[in-house]
């Protein structure tokens, strides 16, 4: 009896703390959403605040997403979308191949290649900012989707993830398929890719998130303002010259929605994926 009461007390206290933290975590979203319905003048004179005053709130900021500079916001949105989709498809294709190759074959140089993958995981990509910029501009890829995407399509972390996942798959499927005369690529495509579905689920969301939110490299490659990706565009709307503050909050809200949808639809796979990569790392 006493024990039951004390465990109920413990649960209640835990819940209070959890709810408190959950509220804290949600506050910035609350500010963002409320501000997106307010006028810029209101935000500047009264600051970001939590007051909800329907007489002062409107959809005006959302309308400016279409009207401001001929709807430049949607060019940014479109650029982010194209880059994210292309990058995600290519990353999944290439890194699943590499991870599979490293996990299910024995070959000369394998240890070295895997060691290089591990080293590449530690090194921040920003150390190569300038030489990559030079290379991409010499290849004539400035201001192109290819310039943004190409250096990013075989990330080491994703290879590592697929490799870890494939280490858990039996080699016997491949052996018996070989006896039946199946080619090596067909074994990968028709037998192992379906087995790797959970890994693909997790990596889809992680890659989508990274590509959608990437800022520094796309900002360097995409020079003209209609070519910006969303984060760079939103950032540029903050400069005092542009007079684009209307865009900021409504644009930020809209920029979160796609990734939120992808997350909500796949969250269990996503969270599983994150932890598999982490724990076994």
């Amino acid at each position: 009896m006493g024990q039951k009461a004390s465990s109920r007390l413990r649960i209640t206290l835990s819940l209070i703390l959890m709810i408190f933290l959950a509220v804290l975590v949600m506050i910035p979203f609350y500010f963002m959403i409320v501000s997106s319905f307010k006028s810029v003048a209101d935000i500047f004179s009264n600051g970001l605040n939590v007051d909800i005053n329907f007489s002062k709130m409107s959809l005006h900021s959302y309308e400016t997403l279409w009207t401001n500079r001929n709807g430049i916001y949607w060019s940014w949105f479109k650029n982010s979308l194209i880059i994210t989709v292309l990058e995600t498809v290519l990353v999944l294709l290439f890194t699943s191949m590499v991870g599979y190759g490293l996990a299910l074959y024995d070959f000369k140089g394998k240890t070295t290649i895997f060691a290089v993958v591990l080293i590449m995981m530690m090194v921040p990509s920003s150390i190569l900012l300038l030489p990559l910029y030079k290379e991409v501009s010499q290849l004539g890829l400035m201001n192109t989707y290819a310039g943004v995407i190409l250096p990013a399509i075989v990330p080491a972390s994703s290879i590592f993830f697929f490799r870890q996942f494939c280490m858990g798959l039996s080699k016997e499927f491949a052996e018996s398929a070989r006896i039946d005369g199946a080619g090596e690529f067909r074994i990968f495509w028709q037998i192992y890719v379906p087995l790797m579905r959970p890994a693909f689920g997790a990596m889809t969301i992680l890659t989508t998130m990274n590509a959608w939110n990437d800022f520094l490299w796309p900002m360097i490659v995409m020079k003209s303002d209609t070519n910006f990706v969303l984060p760079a565009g939103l950032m540029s709307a903050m400069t005092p010259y542009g007079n684009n503050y209307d865009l900021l909050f409504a644009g930020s809200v809209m920029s979160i929605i796609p990734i939120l949808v992808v997350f909500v639809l796949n969250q269990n796979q996503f969270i599983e994926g994150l932890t598999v990569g982490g724990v076994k790392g």
Partner: protein
Amino acid sequence: MQSKRKIDWQKIAPYLFVSPFIISFLVFSLYPFINAIIMSFQQVNGFNDAKFIGFANYKQMFNDGDFYAALWNVVRYGFWTILILIPLPMLLAYLMNQKGIPFKGFFRSVYFVPVLTSSVVAGLIFKYAFSSEKTGVFNVWLSHIGVGPVDWLNSSGTAMFALVVIAVWRWLGVNMIYFLSGLQGISPELYESADMDGANGFQKFWYVTIPLLKPITIYVLTISIMAGFSLFNETYVYWGAQSPNNVGTTLVTLIYKAAFTNGNFGYSCTLGVALFVIVVVVNAIQTRAMGLFSDEG
């Protein structure tokens, strides 16, 4: 003849599978890296006009106050994020993992959502919240206890606070999920036997949970340190490439500024090489430390 061809194919196949990585590594990592090392010894005026200047760039770096300011910022940022982003998510995971807690999936999602927002969008929101005006969110809160208004982004301590707050907000949920997965790997029998020995909740957390979470803790520590070294986006949103008294300067800020503000390409590469060396050294130290930990455990 035919069986021989088949065997060959099986030997070639793995190389084809790993070829995307090899090509990408050579073209987009190794080649630019070698280029970076070469350029770090050059004065580069446009890509076709470079001359070797020996160690001048490196000398410049060691005499550059901004470089030390950036290093110090990165170290402090790493220190504060680790100090908060290990114990707090660990505690939260522990609370979440208790029997009888309702709506676990809901809480997990709520804590997780911030990391889905880009660091730029997060930076934009917090930049307004940390406004120096009386109407800024944090200043309004402070005014209730009669303090302020504070010029948050203009002095070293409060600027660091503004950076760490974003990190805690965005990464709390992710780290919690790492710890949660670690907790779920701990056998319930250990807690039962602790119960039989009469351990209370705190003792169980301290003597059973924390030691068994060591591998996860080390992993979270590693990614936190690395996140510090590649910190850029949030600082760029707060201050651009130039912050007052370098309160928000990081190593990546300097790499970016040398290349794209000052057009000093050689120096930018020197800083890139320095960041590479620092990361390698830190990793080596950490691997050592991990080795020590595992001997002890």
